[in-house]
């Protein structure tokens, strides 16, 4: 069983410099998280390049491999790239190195021809010869079946083709399926025997023509055979045409998906720009409000000092005032006493005041006058000054307020806005990168013309298919005619030559039948197993209790069975996806060839329940699997929970620049 231990990349696409991704020798699932344009599909391509030397782009195979060299590295004078795969297969360890590098003597390439391709394969430490190497690689992982190991979820819809008969795309997938299941060994036998059979048939009609009695029938037979061949050729041509058309259709569909993506990105970018502008406007207003407040903020800051000052003055003023007040009270009392002395009557009770009391009063007056002297002239002045100062200080706090709270509030808002703006900027920059990345395609991608072209191609595809059907009908008719003629000849011809030819033919036909029958048996059994395993997986994956299983057709197309026993017509694209995954899982179970599964963005169309179900079943589908997902494609917690101890590694594809991603 094939197992990837680690992959080392040097200047491959956005993977600048040398970067290694360790898949570990344990069984389980690795998740590689990366947003749009970080390099998930590129990782898939790195594996594909390592194994087969080809790089697949959305619109076909990349012709100029050198384009894959990291652009920033090129600016630094490094050209080309390297992929090194460390793997094990059935107990042997392999180190596969594939490189595109400058030819000796060249420093700065002017074109593709200045590069050379280098390939080494080490098995258990020794380098294999080119023949051994190619053979070994083909055994480890034949290119035809790669689609079941390295798969791009955007292509899962291809499997829908399997439900239609006679499409060359479906035919191609069917061939891959049979290849991974090991059918071709028998199939090759069938084809060889069929070749012999048609040889013997020719001999038979030649013998019939040589015989007088059947000369005309023999001629007819030969004509029919030629005619049949002609129609078979027409069908082959039409099928090739159909293949081209279908390829064209899928390129157009890719473009349509791209323009959808593009349109979304543009909408998102415009929204981000709008909200950036809105935030910037508000920021401007907030800043100017801050400036307004800050113009007189200093006055507010002085309020506490002014208050302290006022309190100090008040205290001094109070003391002087108190002194003054006491004197006033004393003065009134002295005045009364003085009056009593001069009038000799008490001002309160009106009685006469005696002489000794007068003496006593005089002493009291003296005493009081000394004790309550009142304010000195300096103090009087001081009090006056203080009163004036007080007035001035009151002025200082009139109409002044502390704006600290207001400023704090505005500054918080300003910080929030600045963060929001820089988030918008970041988002716009990323979207801009994405848009630029798809921009080249998008220029031609006048959306309308693409969808028009798409429906034209679909129409042509329908026409060609009808043409093939017509040809097939004619072919069947011709074959029946031929059989009839052959039967007549058999009855009429009696010559030894003819009988000999006829016996050889019959013998060969028997062998052919045996081969065909065993092939059919083998296939039937495989199909049953695939159906059974796919059903088991499907039931695990689907949440719908009404769907009880899958039914396989001759092309390995799978239809959903409703609990009523009927098949479910025109399923949704999400279900399409789930069915395709079930098929792939089942193929992995039944294939003699085992290996890891690497899925690129497989969750796009699925709801959270199905996402979780798929993650849960992943460890059971293959011994080793890798999930390339954009952040948020599936909830990280859910993924970790569902995988539990099957989760070996999580990597993140981090952006350094639009041309540089780091695996961390």
């Amino acid at each position, binding site marked *: 069983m094939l197992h990837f231990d680690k992959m080392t990349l040097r200047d491959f696409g956005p993977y600048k410099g040398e970067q290694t991704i360790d898949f570990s020798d344990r069984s389980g699932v690795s998740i590689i998280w990366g947003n749009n344009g970080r390099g998930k599909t590129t990782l898939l391509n790195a594996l594909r390049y390592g194994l087969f030397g080809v790089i697949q782009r959305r619109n076909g195979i990349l012709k100029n491999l050198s384009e894959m060299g990291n652009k920033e590295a090129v600016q630094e004078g490094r050209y080309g790239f390297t992929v090194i795969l460390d793997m094990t297969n059935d107990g042997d360890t392999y180190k596969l190195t594939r490189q595109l590098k400058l030819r000796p003597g060249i420093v700065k390439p002017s074109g593709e021809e200045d590069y050379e391709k280098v390939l080494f394969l080490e098995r258990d430490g020794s380098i294999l010869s080119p023949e051994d190497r190619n053979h070994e690689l083909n055994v480890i992982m034949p290119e035809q079946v790669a689609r079941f190991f390295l798969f791009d979820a955007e292509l899962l819809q291809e499997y829908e083709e399997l439900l239609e008969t006679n499409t060359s795309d479906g035919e191609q997938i069917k061939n891959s399926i049979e290849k991974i299941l090991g059918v071709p060994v028998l199939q090759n036998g069938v084809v060889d025997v069929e070749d012999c059979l048609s040889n013997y048939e020719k001999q038979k009609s030649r013998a019939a023509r040589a015989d007088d009695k059947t000369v005309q029938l023999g001629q007819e037979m030969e004509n029919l055979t030629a005619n049949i061949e002609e129609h078979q050729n027409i069908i082959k041509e039409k099928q090739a045409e159909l293949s081209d058309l279908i390829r064209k259709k899928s390129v157009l569909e890719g473009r349509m998906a791209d323009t959808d993506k593009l349109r979304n990105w543009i909408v998102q970018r415009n929204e981000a720009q709008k909200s950036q502008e809105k935030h910037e406007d508000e920021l401007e207003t907030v800043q100017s409000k801050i400036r307004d407040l800050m113009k007189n*903020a200093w006055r507010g*800051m*002085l309020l506490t000092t002014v208050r302290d000052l006022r309190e100090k003055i008040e205290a001094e003023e109070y003391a002087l005032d108190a002194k003054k007040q006491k004197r006033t009270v004393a003065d009134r009392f002295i005045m009364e006493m003085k009056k009593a002395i001069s009038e000799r009557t008490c001002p309160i009770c009106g009685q006469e005041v005696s002489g000794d009391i007068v003496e006593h009063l005089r002493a009291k007056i003296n005493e009081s006058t000394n004790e309550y002297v009142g304010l000195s002239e300096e103090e009087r002045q001081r009090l006056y000054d203080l009163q004036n100062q007080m007035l001035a200080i009151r002025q*200082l706090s009139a109409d002044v307020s502390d704006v600290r709270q207001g400023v704090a509030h505005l*500054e918080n808002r300003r910080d929030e806005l600045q963060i929001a703006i820089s988030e918008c900027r970041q988002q716009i920059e990323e979207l801009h990168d994405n848009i630029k990345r798809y921009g080249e395609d998008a220029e031609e991608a006048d959306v309308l013309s693409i969808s028009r072209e798409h429906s034209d191609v679909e129409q042509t595809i329908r026409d060609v298919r009808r043409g093939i059907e017509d040809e097939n009908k004619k072919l069947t008719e011709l074959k029946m005619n031929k059989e009839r003629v052959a039967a007549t000849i058999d009855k009429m011809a009696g010559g030894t030559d003819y009988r000999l030819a006829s016996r050889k033919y019959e013998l060969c036909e028997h062998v052919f039948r045996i081969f065909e029958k065993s092939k059919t048996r083998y296939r039937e059994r495989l199909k049953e197993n695939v159906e059974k395993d796919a059903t088991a997986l499907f039931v695990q994956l689907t949440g719908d209790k009404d769907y009880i299983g899958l039914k396989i057709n001759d092309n390995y197309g799978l239809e959903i069975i409703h609990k009523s026993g009927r098949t479910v017509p025109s399923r949704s694209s999400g279900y399409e996806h789930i069915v395709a995954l079930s098929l792939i899982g089942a193929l992995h179970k039944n294939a003699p060839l085992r290996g890891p599964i690497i899925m690129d963005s497989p969750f796009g169309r699925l709801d959270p329940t199905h996402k979780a179900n798929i993650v849960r079943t992943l460890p059971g589908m293959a011994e080793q699997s890798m999930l390339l997902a954009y952040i948020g494609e599936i909830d990280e917690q859910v993924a970790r929970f569902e995988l539990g101890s099957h989760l070996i590694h999580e990597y993140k594809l981090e952006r350094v620049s639009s041309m540089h991603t780091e695996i961390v």
Partner: protein
Amino acid sequence: MAESIKTIVLSGQAQAVAKQMNDSGTFPDSLSAAKFGMAYAIKYYWDAVNTSDKLNHLNGVYDSKGSTYNIGSLDPDNYVLQLMEALYPDSDTPYTFTRVLICFGLNKLGDLLEEGRLFPINKVM
């Protein structure tokens, strides 16, 4: 009013701080930043500037390499004048003291600016 000056001149250092504060976009002009400096000195460093003697001494310390401001625009409503008279009743050089307080406060704010602690400004108000 004994003092009859019509302008004040900041020290070169203080001027630089006022300019940076103004450049931050938080103040409408460097004069507001300067007055903010004065208030900051009075509020948070009163012990260092609470007597005429201290201010007279500092006045000799600061150079005059900064910008010149008109008293008319510095103190259009005589608020600063009254404040100075209230704080330093024994002095008759209110605007000389104003200059000293501005320079002192701005220098302290300059320290905060260097350490990156001046903003958010409400924390130092």
